[in-house]
């Protein structure tokens, strides 16, 4: 089975739980985490997209790009004060689908970018370009929606999303997710350009978000600053380089091979063996994992079994420095055990809380 390649979403997701080594190693190895979750006996969490959302997303993108990209060009003009002269568009998605065509598109993208750098073709908008990014020894192929032409000597990454901006306000969570993706694209584009001998500054550290305006299908565009996200993504990529080292520290017989013998035969590596390998990777479960990681339900059960207070989320973990087990924290709070010196302070606070609650609820401290 070929490893799953990275896409911008996956790379962006890395910045949401940066401390987790398990995820870093699995992603660096290109493991299909949804399938892995299944093999470990957990449901992979709900990451399926509704058919309605897919249809709407495609329809909106088509609308923005219809009639020779009329809408997109209008938005670029309005938001970036682009000169009125006609921009030209190159669509690199002529051949969609298999891996070879992605490579071809990546090469074609690079050729066109060279022309843009040399100012032979500054007015060129790239549609469906493919950028490459080296991550932990593999090449990720990234597909931004579009790259703007050189405006004010900057190229802008364009992200087209189908969530609406109502009275100029889009859902902040969705906007943030779009920004994380855009940051990955900006980074990939910068690396490509510097590889071609151009300056990284050629790529703006803002991106153009295009989404439907109010309750209509009319596109609305806004430039969004990316500096913060860029830092976060760069940091993650540096960490991923180390994920190889982490994986290297695995036992000699560790395996994450999910393949089966023949067509539908028994698995090459037993479920138990897989589970042992996964458990040997340090994890850092937090409730936020439920929103983005296919392994979250598995890790949640492990965190539950381990009695980890962090799974309760919020500030619970932070309120309990040095206490990493719920039952232990409670027995200390109830005076059934005595804390060591460096945990005295937090235990005193817990004991005060226990006393107060017992008094208000008219019950014994530990009952």
């Amino acid at each position, binding site marked *: 089975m070929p490893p799953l390649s990275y896409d911008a979403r996956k790379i962006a997701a890395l910045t949401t739980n940066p401390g987790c080594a398990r995820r870093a190693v699995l992603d660096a190895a290109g493991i299909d985490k949804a399938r892995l979750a299944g093999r470990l006996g957990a449901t992979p969490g709900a990451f399926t997209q509704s058919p309605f959302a897919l249809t709407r997303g495609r329809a909106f993108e088509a609308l923005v790009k219809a009639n020779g990209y009329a809408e997109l060009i209008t938005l670029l003009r309005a938001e970036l004060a682009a000169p009125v002269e006609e921009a030209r568009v190159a669509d690199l998605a002529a051949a969609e689908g298999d891996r070879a065509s992605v490579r071809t598109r990546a090469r074609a993208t690079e050729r066109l970018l060279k022309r843009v750098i040399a100012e032979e073709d500054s007015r060129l908008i790239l549609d469906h370009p493919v950028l490459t990014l080296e991550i932990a020894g593999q090449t990720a192929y990234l597909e931004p929606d579009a790259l703007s032409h050189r405006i004010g000597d900057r190229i802008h990454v364009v992200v087209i999303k189908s969530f609406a901006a109502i009275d100029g306000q889009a859902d902040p969570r969705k906007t943030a997710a779009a920004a994380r993706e855009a940051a990955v694209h900006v980074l990939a584009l910068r690396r490509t350009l510097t590889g071609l001998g151009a300056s990284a500054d050629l790529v703006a550290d803002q991106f153009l978000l295009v989404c439907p305006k109010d309750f209509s299908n009319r596109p609305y565009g806004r430039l969004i600053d990316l500096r913060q996200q860029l830092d976060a993504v760069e940091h993650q990529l540096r960490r991923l380089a180390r994920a190889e080292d982490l994986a290297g520290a695995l036992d000699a017989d560790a395996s994450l091979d999910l393949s089966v013998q023949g067509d539908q035969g028994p698995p090459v590596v037993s479920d138990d063996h897989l589970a042992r390998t996964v458990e040997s990777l340090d994890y850092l479960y937090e409730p936020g994992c439920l929103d983005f990681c296919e392994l979250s339900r598995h890790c949640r059960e492990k965190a539950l079994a381990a009695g980890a207070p962090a799974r309760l989320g*919020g500030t619970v973990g932070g309120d309990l420095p040095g206490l990493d087990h719920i039952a232990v924290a409670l027995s200390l709070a109830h005076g059934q055990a005595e804390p060591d010196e460096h945990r005295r302070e937090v235990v005193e606070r817990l004991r005060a809380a226990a006393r107060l*609650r017992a008094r208000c609820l008219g019950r014994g401290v530990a009952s």
Partner: protein
Amino acid sequence: MSVLTTYARLRAAEAGRAEPLATVRHVHLAARPFVLIPLALAGEACAPLAALVGAERERPELLIVAEPRDRTQRFAFVADLADRVLPHLDSFTRDTEEYTGRRDGAKRILTRCTEAPQILVPNPGGIAFLRLLGRSTRFRGTEGPHAVPPGVPLLGKWLTWFTDRAEFPGSSQLLAMTEALSVHWATGQSGTEDGNLASLIGWIAPPDGHDGHEAARLAEDPALRPPAGPATDPVFDHTLHELLDRYERAGTDPLRAALRHQLEKQLRSQLAPTWDLMWRGVDLLRSLPPGASVAGRWEFDRTLFTDYAAYLAETGLPQARRDHAVGAARRLARLEDATARYELARAYDDPLVMAEHELAGRAFTGVVIATDPSRMVKGPRSALFRPLVTLRTDALPPRLELGDKVKSPTRRDQPARLLAVRALPDGDAEIDLELEGGLARKRKPPAPPGCVPEPGEELCYTVLDTGHSPLAFPDDEATPWTHGGPPTPYTPTEDDADEAWE
């Protein structure tokens, strides 16, 4: 979240059952709440798909849109919804009572409704959806080329008003059930997971033979417990997609009728479990006695409802898209004020909330060990009547300073002052307070019985709000009908009435 809540969550996680965070109910619950569970079509900005509505537990009414992308059908759905909601709102405007309030700079006799409507939705997403629905309908015209049924813009204005009020802590006019429950219970799972109504209720009242962990896991299976909306389960969406497609292509009326029937069945299956959960939530909240200040806050809600209903009957312009700068600043100030008042009132109403302040050293509880009920002290002109009370408490309240004004939630009309704190060898402390009022206007002893606490009484004292009464609300002068309410009214244009809703 404080250490107190953290501790409660740890206990809940260990016991497999939610822990109380309150000893009284901090929200008002209407005798006849209107439950509204909206469902929206995925991927669209605001495309209603269905709603289960009603004020009677036994009689939920299902409204659906068979072609959710069709503009006419959307308006028909909103008109249907208006036919359910507006008469309900209207039924509260008939019985009124008189009260004295300020208006236009003078004291006047005013009237307000003796009861007001309350809308309950499952979660904050439901409120956000109603806000968008209000935004997309309130500017519509009822005459001219783009005329919609009159109920549509009127419902739009009401929804905007309700969703705006929902942002004010302490207002109970529109509540999200998950949030109302989370104020009163801590579960052994995270706040994110508490956003799922089924799993939250699973923790608070696990079914027989299960603990909270198991109940919550069961509740997470969308096949057993469909999501409480407005987003639908993506797996269900495949079934829905096929049905909607067939409906759109159906050529004959009987076929359409049959498909519509199927659609209704499917959508009802998605909504019915949440309907039951909503009423279980109501039961759970009703099982708590109301806090002392709840009726006062609801009275304020009633007043605002009355005023807005009157405004709609007279002028009735819709709320503007966005507030102008001055209005926005004023609104922010009102929000902050409402938050502070609500937090204060909660602490005074509920020892478990006051415990947060005790933990932070802004309050303490002690037992009266001695009093000097006839103490007189030298004043600037003549001697002052200042009884002395000595309490013993189990910990030194670190944030209190000598001379601080303090008050007790159970003796709200009796200001007191901290005179002395003596640490005892066993870690306890003795605290002297002098009473500065609440003595039945007596200027010298004896004070009538009950005015001065008796030895043996347990009392809590706090520095919180010694300035103004926690129950007072801003007077009408400071709260025009727009209080907590919508931005400046706005006259919709042709374009607004015809705004695309695709």
